[in-house]
């Protein structure tokens, strides 16, 4: 009996794939099962293959694997697209009465369940419920108590009123009945339920939730996949906490609005993806020079240019690290899991205000669109702390004035951090500019002041390196000579890959790095290792370059850039192979 079950529904965009998948995922989560979901989608609204996949287990699941046990295929193409993941014994649920599926036959060794989804749905009250009929059939196949679907249907359709929930529930049971009556299945699934209470959310939602928890009150953005969900999440919620969400006319405007709000004293954020980051880079320098705290979320997708908007990649590391003319102090945070999206967002706001710098918070598509179950304690609001840094008020402002009683917003301090006065604070009126300036914020071309201000801004980074914890997240066997290093969303897949590797007696030490700049100094760990493998979703190994630069040592690179995230079993095989090879020269 497999410990986890891999389930998917696939069809054409517009077939309601997403909402059906979500209903099932929520039902599983409410039944106390862990869930990890992923989506395959194309960059179009109607037509084009799309799928929603769920991996579920009573144990925590953090990634996807290359296996599908039950597939609801609304189109032939769904089966073709997933051929490699289907295996002997996989169950394919389809509607043979659908014109496109008329001649479909399950491939050898697989079990085809021909269920008249549409007809049963019509009988239950409307063809639109055909996916729900399929869900009912899937419940029967996996021996998942169908009552669990009801709550999930209630959550989805409850507000629509009338008999919608009831009809859907009826449709699901029709699917269940049909399979029960027409097939004599002898499968070994039994999706156990537990008493656990889980929440189910994706990375974009975790970022939005983290932002609100951290006191973010202003958000300006411009829609772009896969960052739009952050904005959609914030919309309507931030307002409940006295804030505002504004859809700007473009990214240039979005970041400048966010900057204006930040200068007015609000905790402020914008989110975008690669092309938007390009546009925002102009203002990025201004934010750094004017020492304005701002969180800029980059939900990376496949580039360059418009690239593959709906596909995974971690290709913007260099852009975030080096983008912008001149030299710009900044922080670059890269949450490594969905729950870290929450925690790192909170941290990003604190860092931004403590050091009065722009902070890139970089998630990637795999984190943004995948959902995962967590015990709610993982998002314990009581543990969230807000640190606004050196904000001065009418009284304390007096410590920061020159002999003419003028406030010094860019005072040269030992730690590099200057006082901050929000507009409205008596006696604090001052200007700030992207031009090089003196302590008062006024333009200067004085050679000494230029050097002092540059040093001051860079000193903030040094102070932060000293005062904050930049350590990686560590997993596995600390004594193993096999060191795997990664950043961003790959953590979950690597952790699960380690379990596969363990079965093969391969031990691994794994460092998952949530900070690109500043980043942990891994020199010692790297020196102690026999083999170092850097895993990332890009072609050139941007993080591996940094590691080699830091540790003065060649590393092995495990890169994937076909647009699909790493999968646990795939990684296990690749890591094993990499361990057996000698280090190649950097391309």
């Amino acid at each position, binding site marked *: 009996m497999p410990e986890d079950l891999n389930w998917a529904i696939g069809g054409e965009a517009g077939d309601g794939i997403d909402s059906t998948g979500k209903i099932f995922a929520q039902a599983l989560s*409410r039944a106390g099962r862990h869930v990890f979901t992923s989506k395959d989608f194309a960059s179009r609204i109607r037509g084009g293959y799309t799928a929603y996949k769920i991996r579920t287990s009573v144990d925590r699941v953090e990634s996807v694997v290359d296996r599908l046990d039950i597939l609801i295929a609304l189109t032939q193409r769904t089966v073709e697209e997933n051929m490699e993941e289907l295996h002997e014994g996989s169950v394919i649920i389809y509607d043979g009465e659908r014109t496109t599926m008329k001649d479909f036959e399950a491939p050898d060794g697989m079990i085809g369940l021909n269920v008249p989804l549409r007809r049963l749905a019509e009988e239950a009250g409307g063809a639109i419920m055909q996916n729900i009929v399929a869900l009912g059939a899937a419940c029967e196949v996996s021996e998942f108590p169908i009552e669990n679907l009801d709550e999930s249907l209630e959550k989805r359709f409850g507000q629509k009123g009338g008999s919608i929930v009831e009809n859907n529930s009826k449709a699901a049971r029709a699917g269940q009945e049909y399979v029960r009556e027409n097939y004599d299945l002898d499968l070994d699934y039994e999706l156990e339920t537990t008493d656990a209470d*889980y*929440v*189910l*959310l994706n990375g974009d939602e975790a970022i939005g*939730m983290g932002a*609100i*928890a*951290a*006191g973010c*009150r*202003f958000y*300006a953005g411009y829609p772009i996949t896969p960052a739009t969900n952050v904005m959609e999440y914030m919309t309507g919620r931030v*307002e*409940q*906490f*006295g*804030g*505002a969400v*504004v859809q700007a*006319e*473009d990214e*240039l*405007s*979005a970041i*400048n*609005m966010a*900057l*204006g*709000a*930040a*200068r*007015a*004293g*609000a905790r402020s954020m914008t989110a975008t993806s690669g092309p938007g980051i390009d546009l925002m880079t*102009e*203002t990025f320098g*201004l934010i750094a020079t004017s020492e304005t705290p701002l969180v800029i979320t980059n939900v990376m997708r496949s580039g360059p240019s418009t690239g593959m908007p709906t596909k995974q990649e971690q290709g913007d590391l260099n852009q975030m690290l080096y983008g912008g003319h001149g030299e710009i102090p900044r922080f670059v945070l890269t949450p490594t899991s969905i729950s870290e999206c929450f925690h790192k967002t909170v941290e990003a706001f604190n860092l931004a205000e403590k050091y009065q710098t722009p902070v890139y918070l970089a998630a990637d598509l795999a984190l943004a669109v995948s959902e995962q179950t967590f015990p*709610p304690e993982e998002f314990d*609001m009581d543990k*969230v*702390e*807000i640190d*606004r840094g050196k904000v001065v008020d009418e009284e304390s402002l007096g410590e920061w004035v020159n002999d*003419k009683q003028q406030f010094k917003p860019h005072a040269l301090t030992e730690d590099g951090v200057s006082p901050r006065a*929000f*507009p*409205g*604070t*008596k*006696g*604090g*009126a*001052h*200007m*700030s*500019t992207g*031009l090089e300036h003196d302590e008062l914020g*006024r*333009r200067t071309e004085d050679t000494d002041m230029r050097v002092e201000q540059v040093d001051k801004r860079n000193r903030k980074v040094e102070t932060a390196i000293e005062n904050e914890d930049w350590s990686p997240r560590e997993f596995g066997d600390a004594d193993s000579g096999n060191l795997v290093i990664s950043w961003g969303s790959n953590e979950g897949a690597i952790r699960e890959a380690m379990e596969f590797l363990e079965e093969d007696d391969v031990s691994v030490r794994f460092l998952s790095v949530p900070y690109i700049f500043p980043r942990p100094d891994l020199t010692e760990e790297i020196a102690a290792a026999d083999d170092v493998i850097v895993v990332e979703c890009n072609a050139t190994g941007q993080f591996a370059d940094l590691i080699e630069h830091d540790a003065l040592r060649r590393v092995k690179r495990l890169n994937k850039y076909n647009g699909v995230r790493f999968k646990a079993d795939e990684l296990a095989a690749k890591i094993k192979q990499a361990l057996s090879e000698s280090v190649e020269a950097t391309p």
Partner: protein
Amino acid sequence: MSSDVRFTDFKSDKQPTWCPGCGDFGTMNGMMKGLAETGNDPDNTFLVAGIGCSGKIGTYMHSYALHGVHGRALPVGIGAKLANPNLEVMVAGGDGDGFSIGAGHFVHAVRRNVNMTYVVMDNRIYGLTKGQASPTSREDFETSTTPDGPMQAPVNPHALALAAGGTFIAQSFSSDALRHVEIIKQAIEHPGFAFVNCYSPCVTFNDVDTYDYFRDSLVDLKEEDHDPTDKDAAKDVIFDSEKEYMGVIYKDENSVPFEERWGISEDMSQIEDKPPEGAMDLVREFY
């Protein structure tokens, strides 16, 4: 807000480096007077400026100010005003800053109608980069980059504003101090986005759109029986190809600012050192 604020309180101790005689002096003085006479003080005023000779205004005035990047001042002002509606927000910049690189933001700022004042110091040329054609330059105006003139129609900023749903559209002239201050004050008091295009001659690079030219050609709408609440009358003024006008061209008396329509009224700068009350509900939504 204190009532005993004088306009000199808005003056910084930095001497302007504008060329002697530059129109920007008059434009700025009028802004300072307008702010003071409408009961504002430097500590509740947030001034955002773009890049250009005009953009230097933030250095010469005393208030909370941000000197931004070229063409992007308006969104900064919008963000600040929404984050703290108690602030008096004023945005200033040149015609290049506002109608060339920032044209997109201009149109959207107009239609967004946030309660703030936008003053364009229009000299019909790029001053700071030393004399190239600007979007308001005349079609035959010869410059270093357009030796035969731009050979394209100048933008009509007022027409843009009216088309975008502007609720306050005015034209002033930096050397007519009285009228300029009057117009600025009305702009500040207008509930919504107030756009004031102010002719501010560049004495160094523009020998066509000079003080004399404006003095001789500008017709004061005050003397014309113009009803600024009449949109058709405003259209006639804006599209008059014979004459140039000065005064409030259009004013929508029913203007409701964006923030009011959206129910944004709080000063967002004050937050507690823990998540907001009810934050745990955000987690519960995901059950």
